[in-house]
C-alpha cells in the first residue's frame, strides 16, 4: 500500500482552497454521493470521484496524478450534480491536469492540437489558404444545391450581422455539415460570414485546465470577431466550445465580449419562432431520441433549445432515461475523444450510453455536439445498435422549406 503525507502547501491544494474567497473543496462532506453517479457506472477501471476530491483536498497531488483517474474522467460533472456542498468535479480535475507533474499525462494529440492552435491558429493546422480554398469549393457546391446563383458562403466580410464559428470537422472530414449550416444561414436572409480567423470552435486549453491557454484561445476568437464588428457569434454545435465560449466566456476573458454568443440551434430556433424559417417535419417521419451534451446541458443549462428545435423537424423528441441534469455522458468527454489512442477505452466509457440508446428502441438519435455525434455514431457501430446519429442542426437543415 502506498503511504502518503498530507501537504497543505501543494500546488493543487492552493489552487482549490482559496479560503479567503470562500472557495475551497475542503468543504467536501465525504458524503459519497458522487461515487454513485460516475458515468463509468459499474464499468471496470475509471475514476472514483470522492477519492479525486479527497486527494485534492489533502494535497496528495502526486498520488492523484499517478492514479490515472485524471484522464479517465470525462469532465461530465455528473458526479457532482447535486453535490450538497456545490463542489464541481470538472474544476478539480482540470486544475489537477494543469499541474506541472501531470504534464506527461496529457495525451500527445491534445498537446499537438494546442500547439497548432496557439502557433498556427487552428487545431488541425489548417492554413488561411487552405481555408479559403475549402470554403470557396464548398460555396460552389452550395450554389448548386440551393439553385440560386446569388447564393454563396461568404468569408472574411466586415460588418455582417452573424459570424459562424465552425467545428474543425466542418472544414475537414464533414464538409457536408458546413453546407447544411450555410443553407440555414441563407434561409434567415441575414448577412453572415465565415472568417479565416474563426476556423475552430474548440478550446483544448479547457481540457488541460490551463487558464492562460484557455484565455488565449478564447481571445483568438473574441478579438478578431470584434474587429469584424459582428452582432452575433454563432457557435457550431460543440459541447465544450459552448461551455467555454458562451457559459464561461466572461470568466475566462475577464470582460464582456462586444457581441452576443448563441449556438446554431439557438439561432435557428429564434428565427423559427418568429416565423421566418419553416420546416417540414414530414422529412423525418419518425421520433428521434435526444442526447444532452454534458457541456451544453448539465454544465451550461442549455437543455431546451435543441429539444424545441428538434420537435419542429420530426415526429417528436424521445427522452433517454435518465436525461437532462442526470443525462449520461456519451463517453467521449473531457478530451478523451480528441486522443486518437482512446478508441478501446471510449467503448467502455460509452457502454452505459449505448445501453441507454438501445433501450429507446428507436433507430434515430440526435445531439447538439459534433464530438458527441462522433462518439455516439461509433457506439452505434461498435455495439451494433443500428442507430443513425445526426446533429440537431443538420436534421433542421434537411427539413428546411426554402
Amino acid at each position, binding site marked *: *500500500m*502506498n*503511504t*502518503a*503525507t*498530507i501537504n*497543505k502547501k501543494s500546488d493543487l491544494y492552493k489552487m482549490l*482552497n482559496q*479560503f479567503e474567497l*470562500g472557495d*475551497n473543496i*475542503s*468543504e*467536501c*462532506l*465525504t*458524503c*459519497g*454521493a*458522487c*461515487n*454513485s*453517479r*460516475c458515468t*463509468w*457506472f*459499474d*464499468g*471496470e*477501471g*475509471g475514476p*472514483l470521484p*470522492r*477519492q479525486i476530491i*479527497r*486527494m485534492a483536498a*489533502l494535497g*496528495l497531488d502526486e*498520488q492523484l496524478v499517478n*492514479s490515472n483517474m485524471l484522464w479517465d474522467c470525462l469532465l461530465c460533472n455528473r458526479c457532482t*450534480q*447535486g*453535490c*450538497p*456542498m*456545490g463542489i464541481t468535479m470538472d474544476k478539480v480535475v482540470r486544475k489537477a491536469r494543469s499541474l506541472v507533474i501531470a504534464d506527461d499525462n496529457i495525451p500527445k494529440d491534445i498537446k499537438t492540437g494546442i500547439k497548432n492552435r496557439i502557433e498556427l491558429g487552428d487545431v488541425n493546422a489548417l492554413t488561411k489558404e487552405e481555408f479559403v480554398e475549402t470554403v470557396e469549393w464548398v460555396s460552389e457546391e452550395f450554389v448548386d444545391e440551393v439553385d440560386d446563383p446569388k447564393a454563396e458562403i461568404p468569408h472574411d466580410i466586415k460588418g455582417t450581422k452573424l459570424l459562424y464559428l465552425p467545428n474543425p470537422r466542418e472544414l475537414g472530414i464533414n464538409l457536408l455539415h458546413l453546407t447544411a449550416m450555410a443553407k440555414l444561414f441563407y434561409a434567415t436572409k441575414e448577412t453572415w460570414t465565415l472568417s479565416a480567423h474563426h476556423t475552430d470552435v474548440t478550446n483544448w486549453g479547457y481540457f488541460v485546465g490551463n487558464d492562460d491557454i484557455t484565455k488565449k484561445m478564447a481571445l483568438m476568437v473574441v478579438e478578431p470577431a470584434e474587429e469584424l464588428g459582428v452582432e452575433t457569434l454563432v457557435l457550431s454545435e460543440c459541447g465544450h466550445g459552448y461551455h467555454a465560449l458562451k457559459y464561461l466566456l466572461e470568466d475566462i476573458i475577464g470582460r464582456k465580449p462586444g457581441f452576443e454568443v448563441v449556438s446554431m440551434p439557438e439561432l435557428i430556433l429564434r428565427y423559427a419562432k418568429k416565423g421566418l424559417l419553416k420546416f417540414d417535419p414530414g422529412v423525418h417521419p419518425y421520433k428521434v431520441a435526444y442526447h444532452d451534451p454534458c457541456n451544453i446541458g448539465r454544465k451550461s443549462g442549455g437543455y431546451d433549445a435543441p429539444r424545441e428545435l428538434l420537435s419542429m423537424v420530426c415526429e417528436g423528441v424521445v427522452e433517454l432515461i*435518465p436525461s*437532462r*441534469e*442526470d443525462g449520461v455522458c456519451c463517453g467521449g468527454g473531457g478530451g478523451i475523444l480528441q486522443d486518437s489512442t482512446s478508441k478501446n477505452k471510449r467503448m467502455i466509457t460509452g457502454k452505459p450510453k449505448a445501453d441507454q440508446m438501445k*433501450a429507446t428502441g428507436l433507430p434515430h438519435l440526435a445531439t447538439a455536439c459534433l464530438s458527441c455525434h462522433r462518439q455516439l455514431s461509433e457506439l452505434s457501430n461498435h455495439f451494433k445498435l443500428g442507430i443513425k446519429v445526426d446533429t440537431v442542426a443538420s436534421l433542421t437543415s434537411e427539413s428546411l422549406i426554402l
Partner: protein
Amino acid sequence: MKKTTLNILIIGGGVAGMAAAQTFADQDVAIHLVEKESVLGGHAAMWACMATDTCQNCGACLSIEMADQVQKQENVISHLDTIVEAINKKDQGYEVILEDKETFSVEKIIMATGFSPFNPVQINSFHYDEYKNVITTADLNTILQEETLSGYFNGKPDPKIAFIQCVGSRNRELGKDYCSQVCCKISMRHAGKLTHLYPESDITLFHMDLQVIGKEIRSLFNTLSKNIALVQGVPAEILEDNQTKMLNIVVEDKETLSRVSRAFDLIVLSVGMQPSPTLETTAGILDLKSNSWGFFNTDQAALSRDVVIAGCANGPKDILTSKQEGRIAAAKIMDDLGLNEKKELNIAVFGEGIQADRTARIISSKGYHTYLFGPGTDPENDRRIISISGTAGSFSLYYESKNKKQYLTCAAIIAAVEPEQSLNRLDSLTNPSLSLDAFSQMVEETPDTCPDTSIIMLDYFGPEFKYSARLALKTAVKVKALGKNISIIMNKMLVHGAMGQRIYDTARQQGVNFFRFEACEDLKLEDSGNGFLIKLKEATLPSIELNLNCDCLVLPPNLTPAAGFKDTAALLRQSLDREGFLQSANIRHRLTRSPRKGIFFAGTCHDETDKDDLNNEINEILSEFATESFDLPAVETGVEINQEMCAQCLTCIRICPHSAIVMNQKNRPQIVADSCFSCHLCVSNCPAYAIESKTLANDQIAQKVEKNKMVILACERSSALAAGRLTLPDNITLIPIPCACRISSDVILKALLNGASKVIVAGCHEDNCRSLEGSNIADASVRKVLSIPGMDAAKVAWEPIAANETRKLENIISKA
C-alpha cells in the same frame, strides 16, 4: 374548576401541542387547541410501531395515548378540522379568527405546528414518483401500519433492502444545511423492524455520519451492526433495471477500487424534516421572522413576547423531546401569566458535580427549598443519605451530616449524580496525550501554548459522545483561528442540534482536516520524537496509507457508570439500564421521569446530555413541580387493602412498580393514592387475596365474559386504544384493564369457565409497560394456563399490541 377564562391558544394538536394542552389541563387552566386534522395526534400518531421482540422506545404509540387523554379534558377546547384564518393584534393580546369564522381573544399563543417531511420528488435522480419500490420513511410507516409490506417483495423471503439517509438534510445546495436529528434513529429502528419481520432479508443502510446518540440508540446500533450492513456514503441515484425491475445503486467497491452496481428490491429514502406550511402561514399572520430554514431554532429568527414555539416547529426533533418542549412552553406561559401557584416544596438533589450544582441552583432560583446531597462542587457539604421512604409529596430522607443523623421531608428527588470520567490512553505510547477538556481549556486560556499540529481522535476508545464531538469541533475552529494545524480523526461526526451541521461546515471551511476510519484496526499509533505518528487507513482513500504527524494527541474522556450508581439506584428503588446508568428503559417515563412518582433524573447519570439538554431537563422537571399535584388529596385508585385479611407478608410493598405502597404508622401496608397507578399488580399477586379491586375483582372481570365469544383483556393504555377506532364484531368482547399485569392465571381460567371461546391478553410490548413488568407478567400468566395438562393451546394467547397497531389487532380479531 377553571383558574382563568380562556386566553391561551395552542396551534397544532401533535405531540408538542398535546403535551402543552395536558400541562395546562393538569393545572385546571382552560385553553383553545386548533388542529387542522379531524383527530389529535399529529405525525407521530401515523407512525408505525417499531417493536421487535421488545419495545424499541420510538414513542409513537405515546401520541395516541396522549390524544386519548387530552380529548377527555374538559379544559381543552378542541377546534378540530379547522385552521387559524386570521390573528389580529389588539392593545392586549390577540383576536383569533378560525376558518369557520369562530372568533375568540387570547393573550398567549403556542405555535406547535409541527413539520412536513421533505418531498424527494425534488431530487430527480431518485425517481421517487416513477419507481414503485422507492419509498420514503413516511411511506414505510404507512406500509408497516397497514401490514402491506409483502406486496413489495414478490413473495421473496430474503428481500434486499436499502436505506438512504440524509435525503433533504445536510444539504447546503438545497438550503437545508441542518441535520434532521431523527432520521438515523428512525431508519435504524425501521431496519431492526424489517430484520424482525424478514429474518432472511439483506439490509444495507447507507449513511453520511450515523447519528448514534443516546443510550437506546447505542444499544440498537450494537445489535444492528451485527445484522445489517452499515455503509458510510449515501448514493444519490437509483436506476431501475428494465428487465428485472430491481433497483440499482452504484457504490464504491473498496476491494477492487472501482464502482459496483448493487441491486435492491426496496429502497427507503430517509427524508428530512422541514417546517410545515402551517408554520409559514401562521408566522406570516403573526408577523414573526423565521430563519432561512423556515424554523425558529436559531438566533436569526425572532419571536414575540406573547408567542412561544414548541416541538418540530422549533426545529427537527424526536417525539419525546417534542413532548418535553410542549410541557416547558406551557409552564413558561403559566409563569408569565402568574398562574403558577407558588408551592412551598422541599426538593432534594443528589450529586457530586457541576450538573448537580446547576440543577440545585436553578431549582432553588424558582423559589423551591432545595437540598443538595453529595458535595456538589462544595467539599464542605457532607450530607449523606442513609435511607429513603415515603412517596411523592412526602418522601422522608434519613441522612447524616456533620456526624449527626437527621430526617428531611421532601416532595421530590432529582438524581443528578456524575458518571465516571476516565482519561483514555494507549499503553503502547510513552508520550503523554491530552484530554479534550484540558486541550480546550488550554486553547481558551493560554492560546500561546497551543502546539503547531494537533490531532483530536474521536470514536477510538469507546462510543463517541455528542458533548465530545461538539467540543472537538468548536475547539478545532479556535485552533485554526490561531493559525495552527488541527485534524480530527473520526468514525463519524455527530451533528446534533440546530447548529451542528453549520459548525461542522465552518470547521471544514476554515481548513480543519477531517479523517475517517472504519475500524480501530485502521489506525496505528506510534511515538515520534516528542509527538506522535498515526498511520491511518483512511476510509475514503482505501489505496493509500496516510502518515499523520502531530505534536499533541487529544483524546475525549470516556463516560462510564460511577461506582455509586448502584447505591443511588437502590436508594431510589429504581433499576439501572443495560450499561449501568440510572433510569431503566421505559419509554413512557422519559425523558426525566421514573416509574416512581416524584423521582427524577437529570444529566449524564441517565443518558447522554449536553448543557442545553440539561437545561431542558431541569425546565421539564420544574414544569412537573408546577403542575403535578404532589400535595393533593387522594385520587380514586380503585384498589384497597383489606387489613383484616392482610397477612403482612409485604409482597405488595416489594412488587409495587410505582413504590406506592408503604408501611403506615401502625406497621400495616397502605396504598398511597396519589402515587398509585391503579395497575392492580398487587391485586393479582396478594397471596392472601387481601387487596380488593372495586371494579376489577377476578369475578367482576369474569362476569363480563359472554358465552362462546372471544374475550380480549386489553391494557387501556395500548391495546384498548388500538381498538378505539374499530367497530368490534359481535363475537368479540373487549374488556379494558388498567395494565396487563392485572391478568393472573386465575382471571384467565375464570373467563374460560364462564364460557369464553378464547381468551387473548393484550398489552404493551416488553419494555414499554408503564408499570415495568406488566407485559412479562401477563405473558407468564398465559403460559401458566397453557401448561395445565389438557389445556387447548388455541384457547389462550398473549399478544403485545401497541396503541398504533390497530391493523394487527384487526388481523387477530378476524381469525376469531
